[in-house]
């Protein structure tokens, strides 16, 4: 982006005046970058940025953590997980607390590492906590396929994978437009986003550098001012109309669509992914015969409302007092990409 274009984009978002525009950034990485680069401070007071439900850790419901804790402590499984989930509070305890009681919790950077661990430790039952959107699901699919092909029977996943389309539909009234998550779009392509446009849901596919975010915001403001239906791709260096056929094929071959619970949003129809029947041996819920668990989040935590833009983290009574990155009460404070964590780290007055 040339410095003239940068100046122009900054002018558009700083000098906008008119009806209040509500723009929701859906992706947690966008939330983080927007705070890190002080983009909110550049916005006209007539533009309201809302941090949406795009951080996989933040939308994972309390009951999921309870299931993982039960697997670790009662079923004696070895949990393999991305690091952030370890500190998310469950109804009674987090995986970190379970670990201090002797639960075996391994941090991995890829589900394939969990399969490898299972292969090398045949005496342990290894359960990978599969959370995330279209960006991370292909690697979970690959892990399950690998385990099946190699006959690694002591590996399974506790699934909470989610898809974005029906979440946009549910959040239609929360925002005038979305900054669409560039990396999710890189996998899914833009076909479904055309459908959203036809349903009156608008947005701009957004990259992750501060300049890309600024450009996408300016584009959104201009489009909303015009008042026409729109769907724009401002991340063309990565996102194509077709998306990634190989990643989509992997997901399709491994998972079926199902209803899924989102923290704060409740159950959204067809917004989750469950293992196909032929992979049911790798479904930890079935393998360990887990009961239905209803989670009980801390009643003071307002993560659910934060995720829908109904309140900001600062409206929450425990924000920055009982709930800090060192001692999180809600998931949005745990993840580096959560809105509460970003507000806490970057939101101070100066």
């Amino acid at each position, binding site marked *: 982006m040339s410095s003239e274009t*940068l100046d122009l984009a900054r002018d558009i978002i700083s000098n906008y005046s008119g009806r209040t525009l509500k723009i929701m950034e859906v992706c947690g990485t966008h939330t983080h970058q927007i705070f890190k680069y002080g983009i909110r401070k550049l916005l006209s007071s007539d533009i309201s940025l809302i941090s949406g439900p795009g951080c996989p850790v933040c939308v994972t419901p309390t009951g999921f953590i309870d299931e993982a804790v039960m697997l670790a402590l009662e079923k004696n499984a070895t949990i393999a997980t991305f690091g952030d989930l370890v500190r998310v509070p469950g109804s009674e305890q987090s995986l970190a607390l379970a670990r201090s009681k002797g639960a075996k919790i391994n941090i991995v950077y890829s589900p394939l590492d969990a399969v490898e661990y299972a292969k090398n430790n045949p005496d342990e039952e290894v359960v990978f906590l599969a959370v995330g959107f279209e960006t991370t699901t292909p690697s979970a699919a690959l892990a399950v396929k690998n385990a099946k092909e190699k006959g690694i029977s002591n590996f399974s996943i506790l699934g909470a994978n989610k898809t974005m389309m029906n979440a946009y539909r549910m959040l239609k009234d929360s925002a005038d437009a979305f900054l669409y998550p560039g990396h999710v779009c890189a996998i899914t392509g833009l076909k479904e986003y055309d459908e959203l446009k036809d349903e009156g849901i608008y947005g701009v596919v957004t990259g992750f550098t501060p300049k890309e975010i600024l450009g996408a915001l300016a584009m959104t403001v201009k489009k909303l001012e015009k008042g026409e239906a729109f769907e724009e791709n401002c991340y063309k260096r990565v996102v194509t109309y077709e998306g990634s056929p190989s990643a989509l094929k992997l997901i399709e071959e491994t998972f079926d669509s199902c209803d899924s619970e989102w923290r704060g949003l409740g159950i959204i129809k067809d917004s989750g992914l469950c293992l196909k029947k032929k992979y049911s041996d790798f479904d930890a819920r079935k393998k360990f015969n887990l009961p239905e668990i209803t989670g009980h989040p801390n009643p003071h935590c307002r993560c659910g409302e934060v995720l829908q833009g109904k309140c900001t983290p600062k409206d929450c009574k425990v924000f920055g007092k009982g709930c800090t*990155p060192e001692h999180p009460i809600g998931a949005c404070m745990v993840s580096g990409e959560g809105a509460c964590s970003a507000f806490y*780290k970057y939101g*101070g007055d100066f």
Partner: protein
Amino acid sequence: MEEKVITLAHGAGGRQTSDVINNIFKKNFANENLTADDAAVLPMDAGKIAFTTDGFIVSPALFPGGNIGKLSICGTVNDLSCMGAKPLYLSCAFVIEEGFPIETLELIAESMAKTAKEAGVRIVAGDTKVAGKGQVDGVFITTTGIGKIQEGVNTAGDLAKPGDAVIVTGDVGRHGCTILVARDSYGIDADVTSDCAPLWDAVKTMIDTTKDIHVIRDATRGGVGTVLYEIAEQSSVGIRLEKENIPVDDKVKGVCGMLGLEPLYLACEGRLVVFAPKEHAPAIVEALRKGKYTQNAAIIGEVTKENVGKVIMKTEIGSETILPAPGGELLPRIC
């Protein structure tokens, strides 16, 4: 051939202890002040001395750009230098794990000797202990140092003043990034080397340019970001950075980008953060850029009356943001 290793007998005080001391330490560290007596006897001029100590437990002990031995000299030499003190004498105490390869110990001692020579400092006292297998990890080293504070120099963490420029003496975060990659926990392959270096020459260059320098601090654990917060608090001032002026190696940027890390919070082992009146800053930087380890020195910001205790950063898109205050330990055992 069987690898020669340190055994518990090497720490028992007998002949084998003497062998290690003579063949490894004395051989490398020899100087007229290092004797076989119980304590070193040292001449002292009038004036003030600086005195400091530091322990080193880095893992892995050998890493690209250095090793625990070089680090143990640089760490203490740099701490003395930050007070405007010319490093003169060091002691070093080793705790070595049973089974540690003697060849590696030799390499570490050679590296210490070479670094000490470069820094103009003498190793005049030492101690060797051997701990049982598993009681320490490899080798731990503690160095203690004495330096002579140069006439007219007065630096301290509470002396930064509004109007001071903030200078770093080179690109930030390289040591932390090197250790991270060397541990291979993330499967990232990057050709990064530690910035580990003795910095007395750099400090001398600065004080030869002007004695009017308020703060010099070496950015080790916690990186430059932590130093900035420490000084903002100790001096009750604000700090405003220009993000685009902060030197970061491209490879470090790449690794940080992948892992979501802030280079300002990665450890350095050969970088100083300097606060000096704005009018002296260009001359200081110009002089530093002629130095061996300080070619990328840069003015990265200024001290403000406003925003006491905070570090504000102007970003490349013209916005302003807070540099988040330092959090928990990012990486254990980096130094």
